[in-house]
């Protein structure tokens, strides 16, 4: 007998501690990652590009970013109040939507546009479907699409050269600017149509280090890749989406006779593939579903780029594939463990 009389707890204490035991279904421990933490890491991954872009674009860029985030977050609060449900801006998803939207906008647009975009993104892109997790389309891209079709003048003609970015590679920019006064993508379209001859590789350096033509988030391909590296290191996104998306664009561009490297670096392919197509809610759940989704995005991007009159196809490509996602999830399912034999017997 190891127990003496003193060791034995008295009845009262025993009864008390039984009252206090908690029950619940396993598992009794959980991973530390939460929605807020994931969103937070995506925001951190976007910070370098945001900061660099503000440095280059100055006040006007900062206003776009702030207005877009404000529009998104305030709309989330207002709608959740109206719906009498808990306000969930603490999960940072509205903030992230606002930031993502800002990064897809041109740096110099009137202040009410990003505000409008933020409101539309949350209201029509997310909350009408029932909030986080229920939306079919990427909310930030919904916001951008509405701005794009409503005020396309602002959205396209402000693809102007940013003076500060020109510091990065003055020679290349001056020559291109003098030649076309257009974005590299548009220039390349002219090249393809043999109305112009220009080597694509001269664009590599500005596109990588300081792109003066693009949207806020496209200012440097290198920083986009740095953000992707953060996401991959934290295992937040599946590498297949950016790789398949960009890979498809490169291969198809090469087939139709464009410089594949240029096709990947210019426009919003890289940003879209790394941060827009990887949005959890609006892409398929399975590994192969994600591959199909990303490849589809790539195909449609190239089609829109070169066979439509839109300046860039990434946004509509992703939105279109967002719409296809439920269908992909319906047909591409994992084969459950141990089902192989049953199939072969049947």
């Amino acid at each position: 007998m190891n127990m003496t009389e003193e060791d034995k707890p008295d009845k009262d204490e025993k009864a008390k501690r039984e009252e206090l035991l908690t029950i619940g279904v396993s598992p009794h421990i959980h991973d530390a990652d939460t929605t807020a933490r994931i969103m937070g890491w995506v925001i951190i991954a976007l910070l370098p590009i945001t900061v660099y872009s503000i440095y280059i674009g100055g006040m006007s860029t900062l206003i776009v970013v702030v207005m877009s985030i404000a529009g998104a977050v305030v709309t989330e609060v207002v709608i959740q109040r109206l719906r009498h449900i808990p306000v969930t801006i603490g999960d940072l998803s509205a903030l992230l939507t606002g930031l993502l939207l800002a990064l897809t906008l041109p740096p110099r647009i009137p202040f009410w546009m990003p505000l409008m975009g933020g409101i539309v993104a949350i209201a029509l892109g997310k909350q009408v479907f029932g909030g986080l997790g229920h939306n079919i389309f990427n909310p930030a891209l919904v916001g951008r699409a509405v701005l794009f079709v409503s005020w396309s003048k602002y959205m396209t003609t402000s693809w102007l050269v940013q003076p500060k970015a020109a510091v990065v590679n003055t020679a290349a920019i001056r020559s291109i600017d003098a030649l076309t006064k257009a974005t590299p993508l548009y220039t390349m379209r002219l090249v393809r149509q043999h109305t112009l001859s220009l080597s694509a590789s001269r664009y590599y350096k500005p596109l990588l280090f300081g792109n003066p033509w693009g949207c806020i988030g496209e200012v440097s391909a290198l920083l986009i890749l740095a953000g992707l590296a953060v996401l991959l290191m934290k295992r937040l996104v599946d590498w297949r989406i950016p790789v398949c998306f960009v890979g498809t664009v490169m291969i198809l561009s090469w087939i139709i006779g464009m410089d594949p490297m240029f096709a990947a670096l210019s426009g919003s392919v890289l940003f879209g593939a790394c941060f827009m197509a990887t949005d959890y809610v609006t892409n398929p759940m399975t590994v192969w579903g994600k591959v199909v989704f990303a490849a589809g995005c790539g195909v449609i991007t190239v089609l829109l780029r070169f066979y439509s009159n839109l300046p860039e196809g990434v946004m509509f490509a992703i939105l279109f594939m967002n719409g296809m996602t439920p269908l992909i999830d319906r047909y591409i399912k994992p084969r459950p463990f141990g089902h192989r034999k049953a199939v072969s017997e049947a």
Partner: protein
Amino acid sequence: MPWAQSMKSLLSLRRGVAPPANKNTASSSIEPGPGPEIVIIPLQQHIGPPCDPLVKAGERVLLGQKIGDSEAYVSAPVHASVSGEVTAVREHPHPTGQDVLSVFIKSDGKDEMSPEVRPPGDPMEMSPEQIRVRIREGGVVGLGGAAFPTHVKLSPPRDKPIELVIINGAECEPYLTADHRLMVERSADIIKGSLIIKRAVGAQKVIAAIEENKPDAIESMSEAGREYGIEVFELPSRYPQGAEKTLIDTVTGREVPRGGLPMEVGVIVDNVGTAAAIQDVFHRGVPLVERVVTVSGDGVARGANLRVKIGTTFADVIDFCGGFTGQRGKLIMGGPMMGLAQYTAEVPVIKATSGILALRGETLFKDEPAHFTCIRCGRCVRQCPMDLMPYILGSYSDAGMWTQLEDFYVDDCNECGCCAYICPTKNPLVQLIKVGKEGVARRRQKMESFEEATSKRK
């Protein structure tokens, strides 16, 4: 093809999760547990119909005496774990949640052995049938947690030849170290027990599968097994590596077909504790009356690996380890991933109790969402060792869509808990799946009775 195999193991490695191991008691030797004043021995400690009591209140029983048995094939007898007087045979809370008919024995402290306890002779000269009979008489069930009667497991039908016996020393559940210590301290007994299993099923080969995070266990098991040609297979340290189907897939590359048993692919898996218990039955003649239990968690004063008599209450074991600390949280039988939370500490240690885990209230997870919310991150799908789609199972179960649940193979789920562990919104996916399985079963029953009724009318 070897490269295909290595590719596959690389892919399968990514499934499952890697919770913090917390194997705090990995270096504490197995020590004798409390000497309880009263043991409460449930008459159901296995999968299958419960035993009938063989003793009445007031009777004197001896250690190792059979006190409950059943006519049913899928069942295992239970034995007295102390000598003393039977004070009652009545229902008592059981760790699985129900009240179960249990034999209360007041110990006389002498642990007097029953004359039934004697070695049956050399198992290597017995026929497989004789071995199975002895194993049944010894009350041996799977000690990994499922508590399936071992003699049934070791009776493969003639058309399903067994070629391989895998001794499961994965112990992938966090906190638990009972199997680990057993492999370090009783490796020779485990090896001998596994040879008896091998003989009973007529297998050609025995492999001991151990997670690579237990180098001392791997060393002592390889040492003990060398003489008999038993190899150690090093498993990746990942939960749920010790789950039977996952284990067989990792070791042999064979997938146990849906709804089937390991014998379909010519394999038998037995826990290291089961092998040691079998060796006890043949070497010393002692039936399964005690087992190694890991006591751990931040809610108990001292972690330990204890040899505990079956029927000792959790309260006695916790007191033996210095009592609870901090606020009361959860008291769990088993590990934190699949263990059963207890509502009372008065439940007894049973054959399937691999661990007693006390988690204090302060650090307890409490953030389950009020409703099913999914951000479609896809982690549950990616990590599911059974390749199911837990988010769909969860949302369909939440909505009561039983027909659709069946289409997504809810019955294939082994409730390992990877999905609920990894879920960023902390959905109680295992709970929803359990509810879903119930719903599917109820619906199936209803449909059957409906069909029966309509066919009668015709």
